[in-house]
């Protein structure tokens, strides 16, 4: 769990359209340059944000355009990089959503059904809380290996 209160260093505001996700990578790249993040950490952050945001747009807002969502970036007291996604979609706990079982054959792979599994693997922490009119998903990343111990 990300700990402590912390002030957002940067905010990205998006509209609920998948095309808006093209804004995420340049934003993350800028933050990465400012914080000197290694390439594999930038990859993990981009991967998790793409999954989390596309989940909100496709499932939370059910593809309806013109709803808002925000991503706030901060560094918490423990030095963890924290990305907080807030939306106004119906309550949906991505952390409690069961992963699809590991597929036993190629035909069993559900295309597009890997998002939760990938977020759990590539983020160091994942936390959800309901808001009065939406959801807050918090993704934490340390400077070490994705999902593992700091190097």
């Amino acid at each position, binding site marked *: 769990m990300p700990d402590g209160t912390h002030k957002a260093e940067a905010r990205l505001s998006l509209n609920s359209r998948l095309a808006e996700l093209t804004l995420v990578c340049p934003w993350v790249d800028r933050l990465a340059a400012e914080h000197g993040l290694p390439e594999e950490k930038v990859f993990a952050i*981009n991967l998790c944000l793409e999954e989390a945001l596309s989940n909100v747009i496709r499932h939370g807002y059910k593809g309806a355009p013109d709803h808002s969502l925000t991503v706030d970036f901060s560094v918490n007291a423990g030095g963890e990089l924290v990305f907080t996604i807030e939306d106004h979609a119906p309550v949906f706990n991505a952390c409690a959503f069961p992963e699809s079982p590991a597929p036993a054959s190629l035909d069993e*792979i559900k295309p597009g059904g890997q998002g939760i599994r990938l977020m759990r693997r590539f983020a160091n922490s994942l936390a959800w809380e309901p808001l009065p009119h939406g959801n807050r998903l918090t993704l934490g990343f340390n400077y070490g290996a994705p999902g593992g111990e700091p190097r």
Partner: protein
Amino acid sequence: MQIAIEEMDGGVTRVILDGRLDIEGAAAVDLKMNVTAGSSQLLLLDLQKVTFLGSMGLRSLVVPAQAVRRHGGKVVAFGPAPMVEEVLKASNVDTLIPIHHELSSALAALA
């Protein structure tokens, strides 16, 4: 995201992907990937130049691979970068689309 198709000896179709296989990249290659898979028996997915792979990108690899397998063909992935390989492994796709880092072993697996 760029895609190039190359017919190799032995009836192998090499699909060379270049760039970010994110939502936008997936949308750019899906049609060509699926058309190629529809007419290929032996598919080599060349991932050497793929710099990012998300779950929509995985879908762009899995759906054509499923199509090739359905008509009795074989699919392998060749040369993914470490983080791309980690995504393939985290989603268990590597157990179904075997990963090779040498072209010779990728081609041998298709033979």
